[in-house]
Each structure stands twice: as structure tokens, then as C-alpha cells.
């Protein structure tokens, strides 16, 4: 069974139709990449999947892990194993990164009928994951993303993903704004999470990320539609030729 099955998805935001019939199937263990010009609807797709209510799904069907996503609100989707690493991570004042994560991890565990982690177990988990992501201690104690640099925020997103161990990780331009070392660390973090059950959807503008995290499929999104699908070599093609041959075929 597919982990994620999107059929003829249409969605709008602020009265504008953005997604115009997306079809996409992701099987367990697969890594898919979506590339496409600015404004083509990539973040819209990730927000619709995550259940951001600003975005309105107008047509189509999304099945995630056998469940119809229409039946689940955002926090239920998250607990069911859908994770979104935000293109622009949000700052949450007043609550420490650690405490936030503990609440999030335990919310997921409760959903799955697992025992709550106590403080000691949680610290052990943090220690294990933190080393993989090379995250500084002070970032754990500071309020979520507050005053983090752009790169620190991105790294924190992947750290959170590692802590939450989702079934599907959607990474919306996680590579943008990362320095070369950080890109490597983040990619290693993602690769460490790859498993036959876990899938990823990588949204990126740069072929380089895909050298580190090698995708099974690459899709090109233009004007709210997937216009081409191929293997990892498609990314190289795009890097050389750009989107010129697709853009302009259809007005925005």
C-alpha cells in the first residue's frame, strides 16, 4: 500500500487557485524530490498535506497511511506520522525547545498507544539525536527558534524530525540557507532516518542536495501541476536547462 496517495488535488489560498490537479504516489521507503520555479505551488502542497487551514482543498483525495486526510486536523496528521520541515520555521516565544519537544514526542506516543517518556528517557533520546545533528545545547534550552539564525532554524527542524520519527518527512527547502557543512550534517541526519518504512518528500531548488540525499524520483512542478517525473538525472537536466521549456505554456 502506498504511504501517500494524492489524486487530482486542487487547492486554493486567499481565493486564488494554486494547485490544479496534482497526482502523486509515494510508497514506503521512497524518497521523492519536487523541483519547480518560485510560486509554482510547492509550499502550498506541503501546507495542504500538513493541514494548514489557511489553504483550502477544493477537489481531489489524499490518502496517508490508509487514512483519508480530510478526516484529520493538523495535530492529528502530525501524530499519525506526517512531518513538515517548514520553509520558514516559526519562532515560539516563552517555551524552551526541549520542553516543546517533550510535549510533542509524548503527544505522538499517546496517539500510538505508547507509554509517555519521563524526563530521564527523554534526555537519553535527546542526547542520542542531538549528536547526529550536531546541535548546540544552548539551542535546546532557548525558546523554540527564537533568535536562531536561519541555518540554526533549519537544523532544528531536522532535529525535531529525528526526535519525532515520522512516517513521512516533507522537507520544504530545508537546504536553502545552509552552509556547506550544515548541508552535509542535515543530509546525513536525513539519510540516517531513511528506512524501508519511512518516506521523504524533498522540496528543493538545488540539485546539490540530491547528491547527498539521493532520490528515487524527481518531479517538476509548474503552475500547480506536476509536468514531468523522472529519476535523479532529471535534477541534473533541470540544473542545466532551467524551467524555460515549461514556464509560459500556461499562464499563472
Amino acid at each position, binding site marked *: 500500500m502506498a504511504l501517500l496517495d494524492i489524486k487530482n488535488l486542487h487547492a486554493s489560498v486567499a481565493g486564488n487557485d494554486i494547485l490544479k490537479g496534482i497526482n502523486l504516489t509515494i510508497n514506503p521507503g521512497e524518497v521523492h524530490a519536487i523541483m519547480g520555479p518560485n510560486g509554482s505551488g510547492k509550499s502550498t502542497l506541503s501546507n495542504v498535506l*500538513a*493541514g*494548514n*487551514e*489557511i489553504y483550502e482543498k477544493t477537489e481531489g483525495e489524499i490518502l496517508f497511511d490508509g487514512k483519508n486526510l480530510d478526516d484529520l*486536523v*493538523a*495535530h492529528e496528521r*502530525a*501524530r499519525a506520522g506526517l*512531518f*513538515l520541515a*517548514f520553509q520558514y*520555521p*516559526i*519562532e*515560539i*516565544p*516563552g*517555551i*524552551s525547545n*526541549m*520542553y*516543546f*519537544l*517533550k*510535549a*510533542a514526542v509524548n*503527544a*505522538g506516543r499517546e*496517539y500510538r498507544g505508547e507509554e509517555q517518556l519521563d*524526563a530521564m528517557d*527523554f*534526555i537519553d533520546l*535527546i542526547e542520542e539525536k542531538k549528536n547526529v545533528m550536531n546541535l548546540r*545545547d544552548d539551542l*535546546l*534550552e532557548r*525558546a523554540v527558534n527564537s533568535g536562531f539564525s536561519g541555518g540554526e532554524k533549519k537544523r532544528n527542524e531536522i532535529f*525535531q524530525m529525528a526526535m*519525532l520519527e515520522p512516517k513521512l518527512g516533507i522537507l520544504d527547502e530545508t537546504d536553502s540557507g545552509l552552509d556547506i557543512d550544515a548541508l552535509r550534517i542535515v543530509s546525513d541526519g536525513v539519510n540516517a532516518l531513511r528506512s524501508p518504512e519511512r518516506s521523504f518528500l524533498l522540496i528543493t531548488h538545488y540539485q546539490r542536495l540530491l547528491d547527498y540525499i539521493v532520490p528515487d524520483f524527481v518531479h517538476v512542478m509548474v503552475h500547480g501541476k506536476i509536468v514531468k517525473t523522472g529519476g535523479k538525472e532529471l535534477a541534473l537536466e533541470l540544473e542545466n536547462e532551467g524551467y524555460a521549456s515549461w514556464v509560459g505554456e500556461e499562464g499563472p
Partner: protein
Amino acid sequence: MKIEDENSFDGLTDKEYKYGFVTDIESDSLPPGLDENVVREISRRKEEPEWLTEWRVKAYHHWTTLEPPTWAKVEFPPIDYQALSYYSAPKQKIDAPKSLDEVDPELLETYKKLGIPLGEQEVLAGVATVAVDAVFDSVSVATTFKKNLEELGIIFGSFSDAVKDHPELVKQYLGTVVPYKDNYYATLNSAVFSDGSFCYIPKGVRCPMELSTYFRINAANTGQFERTLLIADEGAYVSYLEGCTAPQRDENQLHAAVVELVAHKDAQIKYSTVQNWYPGDKEGKGGIYNFVTKRGHCRGDNSKISWTQVETGSAITWKYPSCILKGDNSVGEFYSVAVTNNMQQADTGTKMIHIGKNTSSTIISKGISAGKAQNAYRGMVKVAETAENARNFSQCDSMLIGDRCGAHTFPYIDINNPTAQVEHEATTTKIGEDQIFYCNQRGLDTEEAVGLIVNGFCKEVFKELPMEFAVEAQKLLGITLEGSVG
């Protein structure tokens, strides 16, 4: 690394104001209306000495010359003081109960619903670190632990009992911190106050348990005017808790209390309040008008008074717990969380008046508004000429949830001695839908998310509260902000 284990949103599912029940007890009330005869009648029923009757009458006459204050940032229709009843006692009080067995079981049931450990059973069951004086409508009903406290020479009980048993103490201190001419509501209170709590901690005694008062307004159309007087003699220490609830009604109800604290040399008073009066419904109908005057007097050198308050209820809160720092090296503290949701209005803050040398004060104020609520911080730091080396640190943080509410800060600073060091910091944060969605995306539901953010914001104040109160305060915050986002 540190992990905070402050997980207490069990109460979140109680959607409605959960203290909104009315107790069916016959009460012995005066008919509505206020004049000199009513004032004298209250005093007569309470069998007060003449000096107290005359003090009330003086206050009443002064009150008739006053106009209600209009400077606070709150709006409400004029109150018809003639439509209120100024005295309501549960009937059985006429023969006051001598022990808990004699207390009306229905009253005890009420306290049980409020979660007050009043009955013997609960006391035995180990809630045994809190002595409670419960004020029901206008009279103080029962005091637990009276005996244990008496052995230490501590006097703790109803104000009325203190007037009978320790008139010299009451006479010596009453009105010395909040004079009867102080302000409109305090003057009214001085004329008609019905009961309240009285506490005296003798020299050198450290009160071994938290002392606590629960106020509950029950009868309709009754004003509640308690008077609390708390004295810590030289070197004494006491921590005092005040909790408040009221049943849900359509009319607004007036609550105008006065609290006076006196700290002598080397004495320390910690006064904590969790205020949860009925706030009115979503349209602002009903709810308590809470117009309270609270003031502490650091009378002796090295004395200290701390106010900690968590204000989540009331339709309108008008309240400025203050410290007069008269003794040299005396310390005043004010820690406050004020939450307003829907149509609630709060204008609250503090006054720190530095008179003695080397006096210092700290103000930490956290205001949270949601819905269409308005929340104002009003603080005054005054340094008199005599106050060499006075210090003050003030921090006023506001949090807005949604974009229809308001937060306002009015700091007043009046420095008359050049050696003073006064610091003021202020911040405003807003919780928006994007933050809530981010939390949702990590698996937290909206109420949890708001709870986490808000509790994080209030941490500095909550840590000043006694443990069991801190937990209750967190729950109340959750309940108050229920449904405020999304």
C-alpha cells in the same frame, strides 16, 4: 540541561466556568439600599464596639462626597449603589458554629466543590499544611487549624471574631495602611465591610503553614466587602493565600475588598492570590466587578512584603497591590499574571513607594489578552527625598492572542532622590495562527499549544506561588483561554 515537568492541563476539558453553582441556603440579608442607618445596622448586627460603628459612619459620610474614579482603562455602566444589599449572612451564623460539626453540611459541600480542604476528613487526609478561613458571602464561616495556630500565639480567623476577641489589635491597626478616606471603593468598604480575615503573627514566630482564605459570593445582588488585616510583628514570617470563586449570574456583582498588611522590623509577608471570579459570558453579560484596594506597609527596617497574583476571572478587575517601603532596607515585590479573554477588562498594577534608605522593589507583570479583552498595566514607582539608594526593577510583558484584543502599559515614575536606580523593561509578543499551526504540526492540539506558550510566558510569576497554587493557576489559565485561538 533541564527539563520542566509542569504538566497540568487536565482541567482543559471543563469548558464552562466550573464554579458556577449556587448554594441553596437560607440567608439573613438586609434589604437593598445604603444610608447611615444601614451602616449602623450592619455594625449592630455584628455587635461591634462603638468606636468601630463611628468609624464606619465617618467613612460613609465621606463616601457620599466622593465620585467614582474614572482614570482606569475600563468601561462599565454606572453602578446603582442603592440597588445592592450590603449584608447577607447564611442564617445559621446567628448562633455561630463552635466546631466543624456544627457547620451547615450544605456549606461544607460547597467548599468541597471548591476544592477547599475544610472538612475534618480532608484535613486528616493530609492537606494538612493549609489553614483555611472561608468567607461565604459576607461572613467568615469556619477556620481550620485554629488550635495549632493558637499554641504559637498566632491569631487567625474572621475579622468579626477578632473585633470581639482582640479589639485592641484591630483598633491599633485598622485603617493605618488604607485609611478610610483612601479612595472611593475603599471608603465604601470601610463603611459597610461585613467580614474578612484577620491575622496576627507574634514576634519571632514563623507561621508553620500556609494561611488561606477562600472568598465566595453566593447571594444575588449582594455586594461583597471583605476586609483583611494581616500583621507580622518583629521577625515574624507568614505566607498567605487568597482564592476566590463566585457563582454564575446574569447581573454583574460588585466586590470591593480592602486588604491591609503590616510588616514590622525584620518581618516578612508573602501574600498570594488566585482570583477566579466569574468573568461574565462571551458577550460580557454578568461577572464580577472586582474593585479592590490592597496595600502593604513595610513599617520596620529590613521588612519585606511580596504580592503574587494570578488574575483570571472577573468582568472588570481594578486592583493595584502596593507597598509602602518605610523601614530602611525594606523590600517590596509584585509578581502578577493578569489574563483577560472575551469581554473582560483588567486595569491592574502596583505602586512601590520608597521612603526608607536602601529600599528596593521588584515588579514583574505579565498581561495576557485574548478575544476582545483589554488588559492594562498601571504601575507607579515613587522615590521620596528620604530614600537614599533606592532601587527598582520593573518588567512588564504583554502577550496578545489574536488581533482584536489590546494591551496597554502605563508606567509612572516619580523620583525625588538622585541616588535612585530605576530600571524599566517592557515587551509585547503576539501569538498568531502561524505559531499555533507550527505547534499543531508537531502534534500539539491548539489548547495545548496555547497552554504551553502562555505558561512559558508566566513562568517567572508562577514560580513565586506555593506549589499547589501554581498548579491551580496553570489550570485556570488554560480554562480562561479556552477557545481563544482559531
